């Protein structure tokens, strides 16, 4: 059994969180509060030193000679300071400006990124010949079947996400095929992710039985 106090704390907190599987209890509440409190404090320190000290302060007032001050960072600092106007009810409405800036700038920045990666390039990748051949020029049934499934899945899946036309008749049938493809995909993803979660559980068990209890070599 480990004599390291850090391992003991980790093990007891792990057991405390696992105790939720039985039901809510004071031990879980304690672990939950420690987890939330410690992580909130940790992230506050990380954000403060990363943003306020390292990026902003040393950006505007460089500590080394020869580095140009980045005065544009003051704009960000002013926007951040405006958020604090919420503390004064009479001018609290000013805090909406930095919020508007963030939402607007985000929408603009991601617009072309999503349009290209989630739209155009996926359309291009679907435009494959349905008849596929091997490198030797022979008919490749597996590749052909795969290409046909990708085409039908993409085409009908896109139809499902059509909102301005009612899903009935032939269009509705295609949408149903699309949702069928989506559900099959979800099923596969579910199984895959559950297996990866099992590996996380194994990691915790390994910590408890090897590092804490020393039962495993």
């Amino acid at each position, binding site marked *: 059994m480990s004599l390291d106090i850090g391992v003991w704390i980790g093990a007891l907190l792990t057991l405390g969180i696992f105790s939720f599987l039985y039901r809510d209890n004071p031990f879980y509440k304690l672990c939950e509060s420690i987890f939330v409190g410690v992580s909130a404090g940790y992230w506050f320190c990380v954000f403060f030193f990363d943003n306020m000290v390292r990026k902003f302060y040393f950006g505007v007032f460089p500590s080394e000679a020869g580095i140009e001050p980045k005065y544009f960072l003051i704009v960000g600092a002013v926007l951040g300071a405006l958020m604090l106007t919420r503390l004064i009810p009479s001018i609290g409405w000013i805090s909406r400006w930095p919020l508007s800036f963030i939402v607007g700038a985000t929408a603009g920045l991601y617009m072309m990124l999503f349009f290209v990666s989630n739209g*155009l390039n996926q359309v291009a990748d679907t435009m494959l010949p349905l008849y596929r051949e091997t490198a030797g020029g022979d008919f490749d049934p597996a590749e052909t079947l795969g290409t046909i499934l990708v085409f039908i899945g993409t085409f009908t899946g896109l139809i499902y996400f059509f909102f*301005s036309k009612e899903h009935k008749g032939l269009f509705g049938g295609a949408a149903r095929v699309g949702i069928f493809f989506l559900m099959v995909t979800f099923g596969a993803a579910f199984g895959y992710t559950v297996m990866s979660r099992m590996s996380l559980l194994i990691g915790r068990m390994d910590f408890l039985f090897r590092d804490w209890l020393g039962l495993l070599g």
Partner: protein
Amino acid sequence: MNVRRPLCLLFAVFAIVGLSRAQDGDGADTASAEIIAEAAPVISPLPVPSVTASDVPNDDGSAILVEWELSPSDSVGGAVVGYRIYRAFADSGVFVVIGNRSARQNSTVNGEEVEPGVDYLYRVDVLAVRTNADGSSDTLAIPSQSSVPVAAVVQWFNTDRLWALIWFVIIAAATIYFIEKAKRGGNIYVRKIGGIDAVDDAIGRATEMGRKVFFVPGIQDMNDVQTIAGIAILGRVGAVAAEYETRLEVPTSRSMVMVTARETLKESYSKAGRPDSFQEDQVYYLTDEQFAYAAAVDGRIVRERPATIFYMGAFFAESLILSETGNAAGAIQIAGTAEPTQLPFFVAACDYTLLGEELFAASAYLSREPRQLGSLKGQDFGKGIFLLAILLGVILATANLIDLSQYFRIN
């Protein structure tokens, strides 16, 4: 027999002339070579015949393409082991190493510390293994002539992405048209979205049971479009909750999301005619840490047993932890996310799930606001173009006629 003898003589003459020329050439090359080890050469490789440098097109003036002809000695199994690329400022002429390339490679992109508008010279040395008479070997670096001066140029437009601009302008124009149409009172149809239709009923259930409604806006910040979509739905949920006088709680994992959610709810309560019912502590911050947030929300779900829980936004590994706890607590759950990896968990554990783009369409569906409806119709127009393009592209590719994908693929 009569023919073979003169041919042999002719071959012997060519061989002698070739060898003598090669020896002349070796002498000239050796004179200019940086010889790392002193030893009598048996075979000396030839330098790179020419080096060219040119500005990389369609960039921000931060890269130069360097190309060279392979050394005639660069062959499979030959003495050449690679190339060393040097750069100098045209006005100083002092060369420094900027990288290496292996044998048979004839180009590289110099993308580091390149200033636009500054003239640079490039030189490429052949790196070769020289076998000595005593059987030992050394490494030689045989320099080339430098390239002509070249400067990187800043391009205003990336013409490689021209088709992205064209498709974007077409879809944006259609969107603006449909927005204007909606504003003029034109009818824009939006199909039923199951999960959203259930919002009123789900909140009504909480009202009847006298329990709370929870709204979880995901774990990403306001720079995530899913969070923005989730907050838009929160506006509608808040209005219904205000109307029904049901307690709504919004635990957040980002301070910016907390502030935005408060503003949104405040406005919703005001629009519902109950501004006094809104209390700021309905929206509270827990922690930025993903699993600590999940643990805290789980704890609240179990202790307060809300009748209805909404999960709208960006979720990751905590999605099943949250939704399974909500399910066990007997809450009716409506989820919406565009994270493909998390959708299976919401589908399995929630009563209704908004799949991907349904999350973004939900806001327009709920509000019936002309700008959002027109925007949704414009996006459908874009999807119509994509559907048609896929169909045509596959037919033409199968018939081996035209590759339509070139008009859609953007690097």
